[in-house]
């Protein structure tokens, strides 16, 4: 079987880092939001959980920044195909629905990345503001605003990420191997990223 490389080893690693740190942050975040004392079984106590949350935040932020090099340039290129993709609901609305050939990332993936990047940066910035409380004239305002931003971004991500996981697993069997080997079967790729496959010379 011919395979085609979709992600470098570093990309794979970084994606895992991002994913794992996100999971830690999201779970502990939920813990804080709803005061889930059951999580003490995992984290020990809330103080430990806060520390883990804070340091996971650093990892997450660093990882997120690295993704910029991987996904941002391609995510910013929008064209007619992308519009058509959206018009056809990404081909997910029925078994028959078809989408135009897509490049390396389809329109949904591009949008997803931009949402994740923006909300990720927002959640990181606001998180650091709450954590480190820089010297500003009105620290209370800053903390209140940061708290708001942190939670809006969290809401966005907590909706987007599960969909992303679903689409990358159950909805599209075979996708997950990108996160493992970095390669995909050519046939698989042709079906989903025809334009990109052609560009790659297959």
């Amino acid at each position, binding site marked *: 079987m011919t395979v085609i490389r979709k992600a470098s080893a570093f990309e794979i690693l970084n994606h895992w880092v991002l994913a794992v740190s996100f999971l830690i942050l999201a779970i502990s975040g939920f813990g804080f939001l709803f005061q889930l004392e059951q999580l003490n079984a995992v984290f020990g106590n809330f103080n430990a959980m*806060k520390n883990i949350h804070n340091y996971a935040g650093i990892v997450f932020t660093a990882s997120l920044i690295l993704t910029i090099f991987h996904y941002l340039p391609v995510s910013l290129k929008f064209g007619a195909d992308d519009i058509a993709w959206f018009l056809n609901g990404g081909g997910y609305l029925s078994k028959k629905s078809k989408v135009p050939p897509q490049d390396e990332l389809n329109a949904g993936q591009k949008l997803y990345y931009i949402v994740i990047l923006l909300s990720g940066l927002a959640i990181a910035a606001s998180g650091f503001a709450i954590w480190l409380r820089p010297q500003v004239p009105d620290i209370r305002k800053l903390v209140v605003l940061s708290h708001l931003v942190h939670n809006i971004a969290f809401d966005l991500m907590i909706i987007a990420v599960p*969909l992303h996981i679903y689409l990358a697993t159950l909805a599209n069997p075979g996708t997950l191997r990108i996160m493992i080997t970095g390669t995909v079967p050519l046939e*698989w790729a042709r079906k989903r990223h025809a334009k990109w496959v052609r560009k790659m010379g297959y």
Partner: protein
Amino acid sequence: MARKALLISPELCIGCRGCQTACKSWNQLPATKTVNEGSIENPPDLTPNLYNKIRYVEMPSNSNMVRWLFVSQRCMHCDDAGCIKICPAPGALFKTKEGAVGFDKDKCIGCKLCVAGCPFDVPRYDEKDKVSKCHLCSDRIAEGLEPACSKTCPTGAIRYGDRDNIIGKAQKAGYEKLYGQVDLGGLGVLYAFKDSPKIYGMDERPQIPETVVFWHKVLKPLAYWGLGGAAAVSLLHYLVIGPKKDEGGDQL
């Protein structure tokens, strides 16, 4: 148990600061090295080791050379407490059965969100980054004693008792509406002001920051509805439409 409250009557306060010392004494709070900055108000603001302080306000007067007001400043023990609302650590801030807002330094995670959530700028953080503030002497009142401040007050400017009772008494004394009677679900520290609360350095209408309310009412539910929704949509899609099958042929 009936909700307990303090009634603070600046009209009766003589600014002697017995309450300030009594508070420190009961709570064994260390002193801060201060300097006189041109006022007898000292320390100039609440600190992690100063739960209650007298604010001195000098202002112009028509009948006298000056008006000099004294008012006790401390945690208001809101019914609808912004600090508790926003606090992420279970048990770090809590309501006692008397209605006081207590705190547990061991459980506090030092995030300081309570500082942001408090409409009165009350919570302070100690050197270990733990919340610190007036707790209505919750250890005393749990034993049926009154708080150290009201116990010490020589003139009755700080009175302690059942909240309803206190309100009734104040109304009889001619205070139709007390500051804090209805605000924030009713404060646990009520003020009998003869003038606008503003001149005593208080907000006319104290409020939990709107964003905190928005977060509490919208964002917080959205987090689990969002997560649940995303999962549900995925499941539904999987069951109804199913995964993409490669045998479906090439893309166009």
